[in-house]
């Protein structure tokens, strides 16, 4: 399930985020639904030195610099174990599940997290 655990944690997280964003951008209907949403989301591993950020502008993914560093302060910070974050970004795990049981925490508006969970659920219908 967590293939590649011997890879550098930062690289693992970046790859997982890239996969998630590719899946998101491949769904123009879903992107269109998020029109007007402009969060800056950071995902940080609680058990490894790994952190990525992504900015959305009007629902569309804004171009990011190398290492997924986005200028500005995140509006939503998601914190969890590296495996959990990679599973969520890899669409193997519904983000609501670790959230509900306290294994994934967020700082910022709950509405942003609800929307993030909605996007994940649409990308990976259960």
């Amino acid at each position, binding site marked *: 399930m967590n293939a590649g655990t011997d890879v550098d944690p930062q690289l693992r997280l970046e790859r997982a985020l890239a996969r998630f964003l590719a899946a998101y951008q491949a769904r123009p209907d879903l992107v269109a*639904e998020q029109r007007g949403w402009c969060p800056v989301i950071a995902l940080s591993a609680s058990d490894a030195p790994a952190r990525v950020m992504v900015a959305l502008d009007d629902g569309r993914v804004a171009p990011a610099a190398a290492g997924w560093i986005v200028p500005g302060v995140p*509006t939503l910070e998601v914190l969890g174990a590296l495996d959990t974050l990679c599973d969520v970004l890899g669409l193997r795990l519904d983000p609501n599940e670790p959230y509900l*049981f306290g*294994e994934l*925490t*967020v700082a*910022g508006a709950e509405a942003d*997290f609800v929307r993030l969970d909605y996007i994940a*659920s649409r990308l990976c219908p*259960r």
Partner: protein
Amino acid sequence: MPAVTARAPGQGTLVATGCGTAIACVCALGLGEIDRRLGGLWSVLAVMCAALLCAALARALGRLAAVVPSGAGLLAFLSRGLGRRWGLLLMLPYVALVIAVVAVEARIVGAVSARLLPIPPAAGALAFLLFTWAVARSGVRPGLRVQAVATGVLMIGFSSLAVASVIAAARRPDFLAQLLPAPPSALALLGGIGQALFLFMGFELVTNQAELVRVPGAISSALSRSVRLLAFFYALAALGFTTRAHGSAGAGREGAAGWLTPQLGLGGADSSIAAAAIRILCLLASFTSFNGALLTLSRLVYALASQGVLPRRLARMDARRMVPPDALAVLLAAVVALTFLLTTHALINAVLAGSAAAAGLVWAAAVAVRERPPFAEPGRARRHQVAALALASLFLVFGLSALAESAPASAATRVEIAHAH
């Protein structure tokens, strides 16, 4: 770098949130029951004992929220400390009883609205449920500050009425006898303290704001201050209720509707303007309580459905409003059904006592979990564990006493209230 929290609520708003989620009209019913069983300063003693326990709980919850700052609150804490299965099992009765309490609240709204407007209580209850559901369904969320203002108005309004009741009663010759009735039995006192726990149920939801508030100690401080403010408010209200029993025409009103809405007999309820003001305050309290419960519970139902614990159909999300419509509809149906099922004193008393017991159980677990990983600090002294065990035991004992004490009383007051008006 922490996330931007430009709209993070301040300490006052957090305290008001803690008080607002705890205070509902059904609390007046709880206070009325405590007054009936204990009365006078014994009721105040029960409230203060419950407040002391909750103050200790607030300290534990502050630690839990600092380690796991989650909007999922108690479920997240208990799951991290005891595992997912135990977390869910412990929360299940609590959540079920919250739904039942909302149904009781709807009955109270029905009784109150029937005194404001020429409509049957059932119609008022149903209109209240449908209106609150429609607001939640539309995706409109009353802001924390708006709720804080509403809570402030409520607390000031009812405190003033309670003070007016006491002042009015102080002129009567039997005032001291009212304040110091015969001592209750030990079981009645234990049950009264257990019932008083119910009054504080919901204050712990301040921890849900941990996602917005990352100022160290802010949640912990808000929890403690909420308990202190609630203790003062309920103690004052308890005194008002004791004096109300002989102090106003409204209080003397026997019958089901009077039993269901003891707060309508407070203070200057004999004046038509004051009476209308109390009734509007009651509706406001009920709306903010049910709205909050609907939003929180619908999110829980949605999450459980998305994992297959509940039917997956309930995990549908409205993309525009970001609310789970099917989960909200199921909750509405459950509350409406319970509103029409909970028709007797016995059943309603059982809901109140059951809620106190469920809160006692969950709070005991929270206190115990605070002494376990990942919440306990390394090398934490053993005396803290002993104190936590004692506190958890007290929550269980008082909660069970509330249940035990409610049984005979409920049987004795099995009066149909379905058509109360």
